[in-house]
């Protein structure tokens, strides 16, 4: 019956008529346009990312080097008591060290101006070096000391010599002293390890990210320990055990909504619940980690459910058909197969948590803390909040350090995402 009708339809469709050719042309043109839109969109995205990275690198690269001055500090035994070396006039020793290599300063004001060339903490740096190595008492101690921020900026060309003296952070006299140090070969600009290994400081030349890195590590650790098992348990229950009814629908909708709640709301919740009610310490990574766990939980639940859904039903049937209990089916077959997806999603969730700032501000992880936390209960900052603090600081040195901090944060995110991709490719099973 259909055979009789079909030839009639084919006969009326003339694929070589001008209209048909026109129609084909339009179709190809539409295809081409769609592809051009797509390429343009991707080019825009990559271009914007490139501009962002370029800006950060241009703004931040100078913070990866730090100007140092090599000074020979005389440590006379009459000024430093070997029995109690901590108690000495280290300030005077630093001043003497500078005066030994520079022309006479004269007035006390000029001496003070000369002292400003080195970082304010030089006296403590020298003291700690002597405490570590008391054998130098009675001899000289040669140290590369970071110069104060204005001189670092002078060396990097941020503070310009042609600016009138009254508008400049450094005086002509100080520039002359600095240049004298330079001509003696005492100025060097090595890689700024302090950026990674120092904690925060009031002085840009000493400020580093170690406190923030350790704080972020602790917070992510708490976040992972809480959200990973809870997320997997919740997802496994919802996917494998829960009956499909109105209640589970409501729970599912709410989990999806939770993933969309602004992060600052989680911060308020953390402040009200973890700090006010549970009495956990302010600014501590445990509170930050718990808040981040709340934020990461919906992400982990959603990716885990998707990973569980992607396990073929035939594997479940096979296990149940063998007489496996549900628990055995999940633990022996479904979870191992879903694990690559779960791990990838979890790492991406943690990477999000690493970059999260707003909730940490509310639980006080933006405090000024000059040493890395010794544990999850000690006050600390985190990487994004450290960047926030630096972005807020007026000193010139913090401008570059802010960009450098962002680059460090991005490097960590990149590493985490690379691990996620590696795990996915390594663990993914084919069947």
């Amino acid at each position, binding site marked *: 019956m259909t055979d009789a009708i079909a030839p009639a339809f084919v006969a009326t469709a003339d694929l070589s008529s001008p209209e048909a050719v026109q129609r084909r042309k339009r179709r190809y043109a539409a295809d081409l346009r769609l592809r051009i839109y797509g390429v343009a969109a991707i080019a825009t995205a990559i271009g914007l990312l490139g501009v962002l990275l370029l800006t950060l690198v241009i703004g931040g690269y100078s913070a990866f080097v730090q100007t140092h001055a090599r000074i020979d500090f005389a440590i006379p035994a009459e000024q430093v008591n070997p029995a109690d070396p901590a108690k000495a006039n280290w300030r005077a020793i630093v001043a003497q060290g500078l005066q030994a290599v520079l022309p006479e300063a004269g007035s006390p004001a000029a001496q003070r101006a000369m002292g400003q060339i080195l970082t304010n903490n030089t006296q403590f740096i020298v003291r700690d070096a002597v405490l570590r190595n008391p054998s130098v008492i009675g001899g000289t101690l040669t140290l590369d000391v970071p110069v104060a921020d204005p001189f670092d900026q002078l060396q990097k060309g941020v503070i310009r010599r042609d600016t009138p003296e009254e508008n400049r952070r450094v005086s002509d006299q100080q520039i002359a002293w600095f240049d004298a140090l330079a001509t003696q070969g005492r100025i060097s600009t090595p890689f700024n390890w302090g950026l990674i290994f120092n904690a925060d400081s009031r002085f840009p030349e000493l400020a580093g990210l170690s406190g923030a890195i350790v704080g972020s590590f602790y917070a992510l650790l708490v976040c992972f320990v809480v959200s990973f098992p809870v997320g997997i348990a919740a997802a496994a229950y919802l996917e494998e055990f829960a*009956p*499909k009814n109105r209640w589970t629908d409501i729970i599912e909708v709410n989990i999806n909504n939770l993933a969309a709640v602004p992060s600052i709301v989680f911060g308020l919740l953390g402040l009200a619940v973890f700090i006010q009610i549970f009495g956990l310490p302010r600014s501590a990574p445990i509170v930050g980690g718990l808040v981040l766990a709340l934020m990461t939980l919906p992400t982990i639940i959603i990716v885990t459910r998707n990973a569980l859904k992607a396990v*073929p039903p*035939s*594997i*479940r*049937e*096979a*296990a*149940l*058909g*063998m*007489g*496996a*209990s549900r628990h*055995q089916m999940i633990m*022996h*077959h479904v979870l191992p*197969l879903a694990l690559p997806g779960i791990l990838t999603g979890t790492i991406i969730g943690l990477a999000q948590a690493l970059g999260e700032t707003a909730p940490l501000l509310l639980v006080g992880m933006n405090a000024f803390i000059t040493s890395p936390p010794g544990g999850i209960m000690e006050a600390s900052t985190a990487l994004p909040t450290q960047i926030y603090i630096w972005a807020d600081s007026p000193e010139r040195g913090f401008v570059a350090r802010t960009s450098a901090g962002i680059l460090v944060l991005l490097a960590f995110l990149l590493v985490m995402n690379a691990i996620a991709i590696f795990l996915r490719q390594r663990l993914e*099973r*084919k*069947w």
Partner: protein
Amino acid sequence: MSATLEAARSADPKSSPPAMSGNKVSVFYGAKQALFEVDLDIERHQVTSLIGPSGCGKSTFLRSLNRMNDTIEGCRVEGKITLDGQDIYDRSIDVVELRARVGMVFQKPNPFPKSIYENVAYGPRIHGLSRNKAELDDIVTSSIRRAGLWNEVKDRLNEPGTGLSGGQQQRLCIARAIATQPEVLLMDEPCSALDPIATAIVEELIDELRENFTIVIVTHSMQQAARVSQKTAFFHLGKLIEEGKTEDIFTNPKNKQTQDYITGRIG
């Protein structure tokens, strides 16, 4: 165990009680009734084939024999199904134990993405059928031998089961199913995903397995039913239309619908 098996084998099937027996079995998926009061005996050491057009309830009946329907949301079974005279839907029956006694092979070969050895060892392991590694090795080896797969895989027991060909995978699934020494083996269109050569091998295997197991097979191929089974049951629209000796059903069906189906007029 082996003594009773011997006795059952030598006895005339007519006189020994059926291995499984369905009595007024009705199955509902939510409000929809998929099976209407089916009475069917599964004879020991015979192959019983369930035939009928798609959606006729034959797979539903098969899956209620080891309670795989339990895993489907909203599925309800009425009536009585017995295994050795014991009601399998009784509260005292542990479904895990039931499935060890009534094994299943599925339409699409579904080996676990683990090694060939682990696939076969899984059932004995979770049911505690071996006391040590040597015993487990014995079970695995003999199961693979009985599934006629030994010569093809003996050198690569540690390679993934998913790397085998389709027909080999299906025989691996059969080896996995018989490793728990089930009394009854259910097969849900076991050859529908296989090529004709693999199908012939599996059919031959089914005939051999009949010696030790009671087999129920769902099939869409009437030639297959005729080739491998001793008893055939024809389902249509959720009802059991006719059952009897395979040769009788195919040569001399009593019911018009059965005749129409086997001659290709419905289905």
